[in-house]
């Protein structure tokens, strides 16, 4: 550990970003890869490992890989990856237990869902008169597609939902329910009322102190006990709310950080215009606090997407559970690495897309566009 901080002593860490270093490719190479004997050796060693690794990836993943076959024995004979397992099993992996013949409904649902989300993230569409009807229409159509039971569609109960659509629904539900709760908790923690502060602090700290799994256990096993006899709440909904509230407690702390960063003068200026508490909060304080804490907010939103995978513990068939179940097939189970790499790629793709978008939003904020 003692060697940790030697870096700022030893070498200019920012060399890679030094614009002068880009004068010529040769100068750049010297500055960033071969600045000393020791650096050159390090570069060569890392390069050696990387080339070996990429050689292996190429060899295993491309050259000797089987890209398409329906016969697992072809895969077994090959020395490389068996990407065919994804082609063969993509439907149960992506759609879980949902009835096989109805999968087209899920494809349509995902198209509607992604379209709605992309439109909602596009600043040109940030207009309630457009967004509210959009979300009403797409939620209704997604509901009709998922549940069925009308328009001649077969009814599919939530217990048969699964795969990527389920992951998407869990994630969206978490964010849509969690963000308002987070804002309320953050405001509560900074409220002028001591009782509100106390309730918020206890709630936030208690939930942040326990693992998500225990909250899911509560949602599944304990929550039904809270309700009077005869009243039931759908299990999928209970779980979504559980993840959402867990998410909200972390997000509340992030938003609280943003609230604390607002100078007192903003409150005073609002008071001198005789704005009420809620007017001040909604028009002056929150817009600034949310902008300030945006990077951390995005981190937790991406974490929420990863956290949806916890539902494997209580037996919901999200994309990970579905894949794990599919990999029980004795004919194909040998190719689990390929299958899990595929699932990892799905998470990486959506996580990367979210963080790219967040970076863009930060740029918009910096340029005063939003």
């Amino acid at each position: 550990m003692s060697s940790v901080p030697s870096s700022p002593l030893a070498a200019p860490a920012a060399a890679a970003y030094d614009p002068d270093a880009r004068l010529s490719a040769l100068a750049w190479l010297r500055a960033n890869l071969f600045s000393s004997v020791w650096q050159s050796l390090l570069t060569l060693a890392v390069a050696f490992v990387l080339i070996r690794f990429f050689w292996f990836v190429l060899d295993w993943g491309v050259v000797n890989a089987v890209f398409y076959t329906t016969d697992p024995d072809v895969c077994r004979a090959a020395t490389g990856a068996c990407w065919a397992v994804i082609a063969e099993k993509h439907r149960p992996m992506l759609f879980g237990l949902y009835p096989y013949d109805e999968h087209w409904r899920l494809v349509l649902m995902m198209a509607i869902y992604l379209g709605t989300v992309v439109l909602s993230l596009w600043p040109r569409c940030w207009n309630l008169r457009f967004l509210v009807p959009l979300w009403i229409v797409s939620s209704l159509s997604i509901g009709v597609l998922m549940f069925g039971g009308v328009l001649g569609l077969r009814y599919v109960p939530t217990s048969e939902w699964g795969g990527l659509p389920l992951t998407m629904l869990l994630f969206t539900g978490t964010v849509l329910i969690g963000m308002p709760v987070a804002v309320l908790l953050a405001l509560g923690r900074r409220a002028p009322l001591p009782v509100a502060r106390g309730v918020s602090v206890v709630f936030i700290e208690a939930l942040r102190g326990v693992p998500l799994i225990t909250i899911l256990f509560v949602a599944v096993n304990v929550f039904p006990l809270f309700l009077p006899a005869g009243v039931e709440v759908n299990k999928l909904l209970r779980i979504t709310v559980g993840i959402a509230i867990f998410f909200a407690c972390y997000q509340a702390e992030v938003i609280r950080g943003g609230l604390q960063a607002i100078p007192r003068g903003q409150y005073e200026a609002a008071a001198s215009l005789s704005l009420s508490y809620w007017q001040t909060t909604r028009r002056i304080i929150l817009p600034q606090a949310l902008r300030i804490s945006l990077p951390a907010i995005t981190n937790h939103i991406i974490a929420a997407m990863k956290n949806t995978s916890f539902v494997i513990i209580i037996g919901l068939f999200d994309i990970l559970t579905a894949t794990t179940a599919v990999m029980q097939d004795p004919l194909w189970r040998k190719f689990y690495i390929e299958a899990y790499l595929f699932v990892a790629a799905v998470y990486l793709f959506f996580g990367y897309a979210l963080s790219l978008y967040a970076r863009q939003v930060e740029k918009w904020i910096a340029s005063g566009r939003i």
Partner: protein
Amino acid sequence: MTQSAKPGPSADPVIRMSHVSKWYGHFQVLHDVSLDVRKGERVVVCGPSGSGKSTLIRCINRLEVHQSGQIFVKGLEMTDNVKNIDTIRRHIGMVFQNFNLFPHLTVLENLTLGPMLTRQMKKSAAEDLAMHFLRKVRIPEQSGKYPLQLSGGQQQRVAIARSLCMEPEIMLFDEPTSALDPEMIKEVLDTMIELAESGMTMIVVTHEMGFARTVADNVVFMADGRKVESGPPEEFFGNPREERTRAFLDQILKH
């Protein structure tokens, strides 16, 4: 403006502070301060830093809460009655040292927010009003920009216009030029002088003695939370009664 309050003789104070005291913990920031301000009067409050002059005017619209004594604005006592607080704040505009513009709103939005939310004005009317006051402070062309894109002097003029959009009867200025570069002080002071000439009731905390000399009807000198001395500027600057006042004026006028 509500003209329901009797327009009475100008001797009737619009602001009456009597025996106001305030403590931060054990530290007393205001000692038994009394001050009357008549309609149309321009009061300049000066004094060394930490003398309580800012606290004094911040008590008038309850940004700070005084713990003893009484403050009346237009005959209404400032207590913790939320209705009174609201009414009094509507009568009073305030300009801050650090402008305190809302950085996430454009200049125009900064100006229309108050009229639209607390005076229930229509958007178009509020924008007309905002442009009217932006022209008054001579920066109508900046209406679409964000505060942080303006110079300090421009920001402070926007802040003045923002207060004026509430059409207040009294304006409080809390060291409005202290955070400005020297070359921008004049544009803000000019705006304030124009405002004074229009007959606005003003209380100004400032170190700008030139402004005090030309504009003030009454200069108040504070030190250690006490009102040491007050009087018309000719008297205050020409013949200060108290030793502390003289020392302060010597120091500040030397520069």
